[in-house]
């Protein structure tokens, strides 16, 4: 039975690769990246072996704890990062619990994160090779720690999947759980500052972590190397006890999940409130705009970008040296990102797009509606985000140039996105999924379109960018006003052209667009 579950996982993995070449290329690139990381990690761990045991211990305990933490946190953030062996799918089979658990643990190791963790943990034997007893301990503890990682992550997934029956929870969790990851940069920056600030900080952190379930197993070999086997036994006991508790909790929640099919509580609500539909003009393009704007609020995939924009401002403020530095550029950067946000609009629609096709909406109406929905809130947002930082930094004399750059990006980008979303489709998170979930074997085409698109956008906005640079070099107000003029005029022209080109393409190729998005399911 365990072998069956393993084979199932392998078959699923293999079949997911067979679906398209672009996906295969994506997986190969991902695999190469993982391999590179692994080579880097393994050689680092081997070299670490020649260091002072105290340093080895500090690094391994902190790194190991971070690994365990990662296995716990990432599945929540990416809600269901790997649900190929979702326990809910085994509900109708009578698999003995013990075998199901073993199968799921081994299945969890199959895949890039599992293999990287396993190999890295086994490399610890080489790291400790100068102390044979410690090396042996590292082998046992490493394997236990890997199992702990998988079990902890499975426990969290199962516990969360009980909650995710409710769509509202799913929607909110998809965005909120991502926030810690978003601030990972500043957090790591803070920790790094701590390390630099006091040399003993890392050691103290490791001392604390070594007594927690996160770090205990990683610390045991160091205790053996330091000639303190008794302490090592205590650490192993902490680790094993944690593992036992986790397995117990996991099997409990699993057997609960197996008899409790997901249930979505639904509240009946009478109609009468048409929302944006009663506020936009009753035309096809007005309806498209109302629908798109409703989605900006209700669909977590769009709402996530709305949440990220203010966070971006905070992040730039924190890491960019306060009000004077990068923070001043919040407006243009936000405009750039917002404009790009509709570049995968049709991909996000998925097959719901067929309604546009069967009702015979013209390309012009479709493109204008989507662009209008974006501009309705992106234009005021861009203005506020451009003016506020300059007000705070008391640099209002830079307003024309910044406004020119921001509006240039917004209009140019909206025009470009209107064309791109009608021309290229790629796998995006499906409707109802977390905005941050990478679709299976996130494909090569997506990277090409994303980076190619950004490049083209920068090229199209080159006049504004050059004028901005000239302004800051020369300090001549004239160039500021010129930037504003070019931004609005040239941006406006690109907007019109993009929408027209996108609309034409849509009119000719809409059935092919539908076919392309229906492959992503």
């Amino acid at each position: 039975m365990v072998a069956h579950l393993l084979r199932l996982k392998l078959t699923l993995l293999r079949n997911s690769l067979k679906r398209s070449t672009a996906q295969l290329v994506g997986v190969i690139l991902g695999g190469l990246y993982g391999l590179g990381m692994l080579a880097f990690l393994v050689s680092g761990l081997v070299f670490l072996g020649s260091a002072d045991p105290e340093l080895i211990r500090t690094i391994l305990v902190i790194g190991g704890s971070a690994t365990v933490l990662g296995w716990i946190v990432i599945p929540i953030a990416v809600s269901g990062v790997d649900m190929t062996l979702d326990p809910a799918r085994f509900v109708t089979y009578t698999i003995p619990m013990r075998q199901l658990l073993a199968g799921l643990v081994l299945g969890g190791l199959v895949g890039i994160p599992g293999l990287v963790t396993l190999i890295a943990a086994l490399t610890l034997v080489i790291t400790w090779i100068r102390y044979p007893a410690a090396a042996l301990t590292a082998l046992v503890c490493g394997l236990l720690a890997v199992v702990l990682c998988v079990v902890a992550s499975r426990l969290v997934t199962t516990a969360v999947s009980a909650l995710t029956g409710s769509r509202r929870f799913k929607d909110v969790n998809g965005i909120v759980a991502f926030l810690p990851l978003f601030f990972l940069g500043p957090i790591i920056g803070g920790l790094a500052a701590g390390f630099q600030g006091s040399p003993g900080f890392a050691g103290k952190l490791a001392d604390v972590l070594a007594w927690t379930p996160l770090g205990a197993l990683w610390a045991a070999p160091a205790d053996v190397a330091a000639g303190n086997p008794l302490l090592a036994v205590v650490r192993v006991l902490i680790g094993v006890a944690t593992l036992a508790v986790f397995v117990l909790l996991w099997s409990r929640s699993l057997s609960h999940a197996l008899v409790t099919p997901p249930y979505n509580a639904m509240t009946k609500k009478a109609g009468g409130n048409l929302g944006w539909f009663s506020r936009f003009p009753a035309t096809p393009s007005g309806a498209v705009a109302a629908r798109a704007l409703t989605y900006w609020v209700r669909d977590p995939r769009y709402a996530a970008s709305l949440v990220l924009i203010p966070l971006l401002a905070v992040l730039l403020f924190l890491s960019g040296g306060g009000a004077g530095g990068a923070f001043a550029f919040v407006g243009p950067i936000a405009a750039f990102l917002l404009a790009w946000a509709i570049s995968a609009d049709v991909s996000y629609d998925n097959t719901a797009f067929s309604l546009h096709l069967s009702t015979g909406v013209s390309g012009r109406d479709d493109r204008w509606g989507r662009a209008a929905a974006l501009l309705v809130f992106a234009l005021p947002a861009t203005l506020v985000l451009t003016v506020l930082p300059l007000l705070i930094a008391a640099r209002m004399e830079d307003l024309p140039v910044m406004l020119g750059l921001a509006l240039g990006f917004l209009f140019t980008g909206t025009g470009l996105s209107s064309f791109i979303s009608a021309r290229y489709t790629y796998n995006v998170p499906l409707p109802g999924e977390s905005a941050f979930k990478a679709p299976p074997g996130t494909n090569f085409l997506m990277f090409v379109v994303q980076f190619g698109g950004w490049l083209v956008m920068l090229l199209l906005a080159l006049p504004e960018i050059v004028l901005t640079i000239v302004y800051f070099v020369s300090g001549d107000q004239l160039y500021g006003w010129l930037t504003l003029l070019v931004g609005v005029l040239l941006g406006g022209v690109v907007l019109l052209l993009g929408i027209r080109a996108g609309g034409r393409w849509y009119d000719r190729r809409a059935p092919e667009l539908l076919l392309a998005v229906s492959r992503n399911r």
Partner: protein
Amino acid sequence: MSSPVPSPPEQDSPQQPSRTAALSIRGLAKRFGDKIAVNGVDLEVPAGSFFGLVGPNGAGKTTTLSMATGLLRPDHGRALVHGVDVWEKPLEAKRLMGVLPDGVRLFDRLTGEQLVTYAGLLRGMDRETVAERTGDLLRALDLTNDAGTLVVDYSAGMTKKIALASALIHAPKLLVLDEPFESVDPVSAANIRDILSSYVHSGGSVIVSSHVMDLVQRMCDHVAVIAAGTVLAAGTIDEVRGEATLEDRFVDLVGGRNTAEGLSWLRTS
């Protein structure tokens, strides 16, 4: 069951699509990679008929209907709706059609009421008419109490019904419904049948795909049996079924029926 307009489909020459039929399909074909999904399908849906399209799973029903409604570009062949070519004058043809596709998502973050309104506005209808008809449709399909609920929270049957409402909002002359009764409860199914019957009586034409033979035999006046991408039989229900029931005739035509000999172990006594 007699058809209101008993014009036999063979009236026109096989190569020339009929100008009078509600839907006239000539030689539609589609290939996906190595697999030929639809292999030259000819169909005549007479105006004012209630037409059933039956076939086993994977027969090419959905592919055929997608090509006939402008959702999937055919490799070969033509489709005419009341004489308007779907692929040459798509906008004009789509005005005449109401489409309920199978296996596609809806804009399910809208409420039921918003979705139907959206479908109406996309068709370029004015606000008052849309509001009035949306209310009527929701009432007729027993969705009034859930009008403000997001479609994503609907059950499978309710989702089917709201999609049907979106297809009806512009009072089309031809309704193309792919599996309209799937997972719909018996009461709602009876309501939908009534709506469709009175629609046909008032001069509209309906083509439904289904694998429930009994339903097609009771509800439709014309039927076509399709398997492996080709039409095996077409005509009025009585022409196709002869003396037998539609179900028996269907099994005859399609084949693949296993005798009940197997699974001898599947006996409880």
